[in-house]
């Protein structure tokens, strides 16, 4: 077990370094001078030179890279060019909003997805099965930003029973539409996967044995089939969480949700290098760490995996 964990972590480190370096390269070669942007529309060359020097932009690239790595190892993600806030602090502030959104979206998606999946598998080829699966495929096919707009149109502008976009006063009512929007796709994926896993499992011998033992269908399904189908479903939930956390950019943009995804897009437009670097690395780290945890838990649950 220990060697498994160690191996996983050792693979983790070069990937993180790769991410960090690619981010640095990308941000450096993206055209557009942040110092120029900070000056506003009208600029004067001497002030420009001074700002560049203050930001450390006049150092050779290799020096900037070393500085960057050094800061990173100390946990310093730098200071935003735009508003002088510490990037790390800004990220933590915004991450709270993203976390809230992703958390509830995942809960919704898991509950709906798993139940729909189980029911569809149990009632295979029924009307419920066909409709549920159709909705699921539609859920995966509709662009998330369009779904969001549609929901806004119907519930916020049309029927006016829900507030529109934004974090509002933080109450749960503002959470509903973004959560439903963000959760649609994962719900659909989970439903489909649960269904196919359940079907696989339910055709196995040990299920037939359980049935012939006279156990009720419900026990058979829930106690025996479901638990085994859970493993791959768990994995998908894990990866979905990782994806959602690492920035539900489109949903956050439509709903003006003050999360990390939107922060990054704004930083990109403003060429706020430290913020871009910081938030992309942050999100990548979250993704990697979540996946790592899922992998490790997978190893815990299923001994076969450890000897991979």
């Amino acid at each position, binding site marked *: 077990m220990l060697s498994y964990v160690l191996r996983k972590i050792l693979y983790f480190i070069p990937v993180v370094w790769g991410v960090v370096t690619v981010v640095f390269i990308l941000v450096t070669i993206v*055209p*557009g*001078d*942040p110092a*120029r*942007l*900070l*000056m*506003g*529309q*009208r*600029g*004067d*060359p*001497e*002030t*420009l030179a*001074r*700002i560049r020097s*203050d930001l450390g932009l006049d150092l050779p690239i290799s020096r900037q890279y070393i500085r960057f790595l050094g800061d990173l190892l100390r946990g310093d993600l730098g200071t935003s060019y*735009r*508003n*002088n*806030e510490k990037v790390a602090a*800004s990220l933590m*502030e*915004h991450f709270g909003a993203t976390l809230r959104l992703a958390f509830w979206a995942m809960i919704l998606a898991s509950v709906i997805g798993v139940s729909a999946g189980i029911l569809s598998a149990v009632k295979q080829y029924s009307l419920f099965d066909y409709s549920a699966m159709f909705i699921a495929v539609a859920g995966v096919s509709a662009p998330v930003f369009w779904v969001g707009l549609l929901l806004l149109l119907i519930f916020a*502008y049309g029927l006016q029973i829900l*507030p*529109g*976009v*934004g*974090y*509002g006063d933080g109450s749960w009512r503002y959470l509903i539409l973004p959560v439903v929007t963000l959760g649609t796709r994962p719900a659909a994926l989970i439903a489909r996967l649960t269904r196919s896993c359940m079907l696989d499992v339910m055709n196995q011998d040990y299920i037939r044995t359980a049935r012939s033992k006279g156990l009720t269908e419900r026990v058979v399904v829930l106690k025996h089939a479901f638990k085994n189908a859970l493993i791959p479903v768990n994995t998908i939930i894990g990866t979905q969480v990782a994806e959602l956390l690492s920035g539900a950019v489109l949903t956050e943009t439509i709903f*003006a949700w*003050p999360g990390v995804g939107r922060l990054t897009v704004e930083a*990109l*437009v*403003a*060429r706020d290098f430290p913020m871009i670097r910081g938030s992309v690395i942050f999100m990548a780290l979250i993704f990697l760490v979540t996946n790592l945890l899922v992998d490790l838990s997978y190893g815990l649950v299923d001994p076969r995996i450890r000897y991979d």
Partner: protein
Amino acid sequence: MRKTLRPLRYCLVIALFVLGACIAGAEEPRSGGVLRWREISDPPRLDPATASDSVSNRNLYLMFDTLVENDIDGKGLLPRLAESWEGSEEGRVWTFRLRKGARFHATNRGSPTGNGGREVRAADWKYSFERLVKVGSPRAYFIDMVKGYRDFTDGKTSEWSGIRVIDDHTLQFELEYSFAPFVSILAYPCFAVVPREDAEKAGVNFNFGPVGSGPFLLDHWEHDQKVVYKRNPDYWRRDDGGRPLPYLDGVEIIVIPDNTIAYGEFRKGNIDVLPDVPDEFYTDVKERFGNLFQERPLLGVYYIGFNYAKPPFKDNRTLRKALNYAVDRKAMSDFLLEGRYAPAPGVLPPGMPGYDPDLKGYDFDPGLARKMLAEAGAAEGFSVELNIDNNPRHRTVAEGLQGLLAEFGIDLRVNVLDWGVHLDLADRGETQMYRMGWIVDYADPDNFLYVLFHSDNFGPKGNYSYYKNEKVDGLLTEARIETDYDRRMALYREAERIIVDDAPWMFLFYYTTSLVGGEHVRNLRLPAFGHYSTPLEIAWIDR
């Protein structure tokens, strides 16, 4: 009968008196209340030395005082912390007499400040100006004509020699050359006075806890949500009746990025002022809120520049003029912009000194346009690129222009770039056509004509068209040092006429500024300089 009538007469008089008092009293400003003002984004910076955008400026106007301020209707300069000023030596030396009794904020974010609420003195002004240079303000160079700027910025001297403290309440500036618009530049929010104790103690964090002398002081800042200000109880300004301003207990700048929800909140009464009414609700707001809605031309222009130094527009005035005749500005404004922008014949907007109401620009004349296109060798149509930045309004205008020009066989290719790239290309003159806007910094035609059209200012300094005309250069330089007002304006008018004739731009629109206030908000006066400078110290809430 007579006996009963006399007391009746008295009662009537008393009733009238009371009625009169009620009416007068109804208009008597009430103290108290918090005004909630919507902004579309979190202010990037609250330190006057580093802020340069309108959202930040909105906040700066609340916390800080400058020496002078702009009249609400753009009619000139008014005293603020300077009671009076005079120029001598033909506009090379400016002496300001400072107001007594203006104090810095005594508290900030709930705790006492380093300066303790002491009086503002001339030395504080010198400190504040020098600080601009030391902190690397992007706007310090606006006053680079003050003697000693160069040496001080290069670090050769430890103080700015052209700024002199004569005594505690007298401040003097000596310029390298006569520069008539000098005093109007000082109205710009970055030239505010800050207390040395707090600025030095906070260092870069002054941005998160700025201390000034203005009508409101910072209480707390929840990023991306709101900025909360409380009334400054020691503010120097009083109204005509001697009452201390501001009337309000506080102001909250509420950040709501989405227009729809902002409008919804305003209608529900959760927001008191909605500045810069968005296009999609414009007609609705006008219908619904009538006289609570204010709109006026903003001192700013929206234009598309031609690259004067490169083909196809280089040395091809006929082509440039043809394109100006080909555009139906009124229809574009009506269809695409809800009629909000006014067609612009030239450069200087109405309200700016030197504005020429008789200037003949380019009317929509398709026949003439076609003829001139043929003369310019473009009868078969041609293809040209327009750079814009990624903003929905600009995209709309550009697309509309595409459709319009297609009727003349012109293939307008629109490049939607993000702002950094767009600016970069315009700076370097790597464009064919580019869209830009220009909003006033200080109320003088120099701020438009010199910055945008003088050949000293190619690229990032403002002349993105790389336009050069020696006669215009001469007129503009002369006007900078001319001290007689009428002669200056005449020079600017002549320059503008030549510029319009040379057509380095497709002259399009003047911006407008607008806001709508809740019905309980009183004395909200929209300035010509833009909604972000609406003075909130004179506003009050009637509840």
